[in-house]
């Protein structure tokens, strides 16, 4: 607990519009069990005290190392997992305190596109049904309308109507991802957690989907939590970006600000690692040294210090403050 960064105190209050989602000091620990009797021997601190706000109509990008807790944030934020601590407010209401039926109702307003398209589809349900069933279940449309809307949404997402009666395993990886996107979009939600929605898609479809997402955002004031590895896509789509490392937020800033002026050494490393589609160009990369630490036993002080090229003694001991550097640019680094 003592390791919790002080960032939680400071509520970044950025941008325009009303806050739609407010995440405060969110924590999610997974128990590690061991021994014959599977006793709890520790916790994976997948998310360890993260706070941020997403305003209505904004798209918030979340980038970071694989395994740093992005998907877990996405899930916990939608209460698909139970949280360990902290709170999530959606439209001002604490999601984790809603009753089952209130939550169910709330779900029509917030959707998620899962990272793994295949396992998030029931192998025995035809994709057309899978896309349309939530409408049916919430009584949002008649059976006939649903079919039309499903086909319409499928087309928007780059699927064809003849895909309606197919089962998930009959699709290629990218096609499945599109099914997941269609399933979320058809609900006409206010907020979407998109967990790497385009990483499995070819660039053309990717462009199509991203265009679609930004069109929807413009037209319907949609709000996104956009989780991705692909910084170029994040740059294109998001208004603000948060950079995570080992369960905590390291840096958060409006997109342009972040990309033009990355402050955290980890962000800088990330930026430099982006492959550029030009085989003639060979760039200098910041190579991160050392092993990635375990989220079960994160390093003291700044969690990044074990791999940081500019780390010094203070980093090992003190948790850096999560500071606003102006321009809504927050960073947790002693040297920023």
């Amino acid at each position, binding site marked *: 607990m003592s390791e919790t960064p002080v960032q939680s105190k400071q509520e970044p209050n950025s941008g325009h519009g009303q806050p739609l989602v407010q995440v405060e000091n969110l924590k999610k620990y997974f128990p590690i069990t061991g021994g014959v009797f599977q006793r709890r021997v520790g916790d994976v601190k997948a998310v360890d005290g993260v706070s941020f706000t997403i305003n209505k109509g904004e798209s918030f990008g979340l980038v970071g190392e694989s395994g740093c807790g992005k998907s877990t944030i996405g899930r916990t934020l939608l209460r698909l997992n139970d949280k360990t601590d902290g709170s999530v407010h959606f439209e001002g209401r604490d999601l984790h305190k809603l009753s089952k039926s209130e939550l169910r109702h709330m779900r029509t307003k917030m959707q998620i596109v899962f990272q793994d398209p295949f396992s998030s589809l*029931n192998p*025995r349900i035809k994709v057309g049904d899978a896309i349309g069933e939530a409408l049916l279940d919430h009584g949002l449309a008649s059976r006939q309308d649903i079919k039309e809307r499903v086909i319409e949404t499928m087309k928007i997402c780059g699927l064809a109507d003849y895909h309606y009666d197919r089962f998930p395993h009959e699709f290629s990886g990218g096609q499945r991802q599109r099914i997941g996107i269609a399933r979320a979009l058809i609900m006409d939600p206010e907020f979407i957690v998109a967990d790497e929605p385009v990483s499995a898609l070819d660039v053309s479809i990717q462009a199509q989907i991203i265009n679609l997402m930004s069109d929807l955002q413009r037209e319907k004031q949609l709000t996104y939590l956009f989780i991705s590895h692909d910084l170029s896509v994040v740059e294109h789509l998001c208004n603000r970006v948060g950079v995570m490392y080992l369960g905590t937020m390291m840096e958060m800033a409006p997109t342009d600000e972040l990309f033009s002026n990355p402050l955290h050494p980890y962000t800088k490393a990330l930026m430099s690692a982006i492959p550029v589609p030009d085989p003639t160009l060979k760039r200098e990369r910041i190579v991160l040294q050392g092993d990635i630490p375990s989220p079960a036993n994160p390093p003291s002080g700044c969690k990044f210090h074990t791999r940081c090229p500019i780390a010094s003694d203070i980093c090992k001991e003190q948790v850096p403050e999560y500071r606003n550097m102006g321009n809504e640019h927050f960073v947790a680094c002693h040297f920023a």
Partner: protein
Amino acid sequence: MEQLQEQLKIVKPESPWKIAIRRFSKNKLALIGLFILVLMFLLCFVGPLFSPYELNQTNVRNKNQAPNASYWLGTDKLGRDILLRVMLAGRISLTVGLVATAISVAIGATLGAVAGFYRKYADTIIMRIADIFLALPTLPILITLGAILSDLKVDPGQRIYFLMLIIGLLGWVGLARLVRSQILTLREQEFMQATEALGLRDNRKIFRHLLPNTVPIIIVSATLGVAGAILTESALSFLGLGVVPPTPSWGNMITAANSLIEFRKRPWTWIPPGICILVTVTAINLIGDGLRDALDPKMKNR
């Protein structure tokens, strides 16, 4: 675009039922199974109308005749026509087998699914009830039930409904545990998180998403259940729960041949009901397999 339009016309989306039916009807074995079952029903429900004999007609002088021109399948030790009895027995046995199995499958699958899905209290309660069901001594309960039905003067003809219920109630525990265990695995999968994210009703989660994934095991359990129910019926009839002796059932007819001598000397008394059960069970299994394949997205064009 034009071409797309054209495609639209050609490829009209089929209703899922139609697909299942079409796939089912493509499955030759399943069709054969269905055909046999229909045939069995016809034989049992229509066949007796053409028989020159009557159910209660005993004729001790004609007892134990081997199959011959007037008794195609021979006679039993009271001189009754075995063909007629087999057909009449089928009415009881087919109904009992199917209805009782349907009951236990319905209860078992539902309770198993509910327990596995909700876990916690629902699981504890349902599984403890299941434990109690397993732990209770069946025989004394059945004896008591038989006595109660008798005391209530329930028409023996109607006890068959209780019988189906009882056999159904006796058989749900195994399936419930099987289904529960599968659901426990399934519910941890990501597509269930997806249903949660969509805010689907629990009903739909259980019956549309989880149960269909347990269909194969349900089908096995049902196929095994039918034969079991048919044979159990005869055991229960001893306790005032099943059919009463002049009314035959396949189980009763087989159990009547309970000695090595009967077995060797008069095969015509036990082979026909045995074959009937076998054929029924096989037919149901064929249908079950067909159904499973039809419902299994990965099994196509078989």
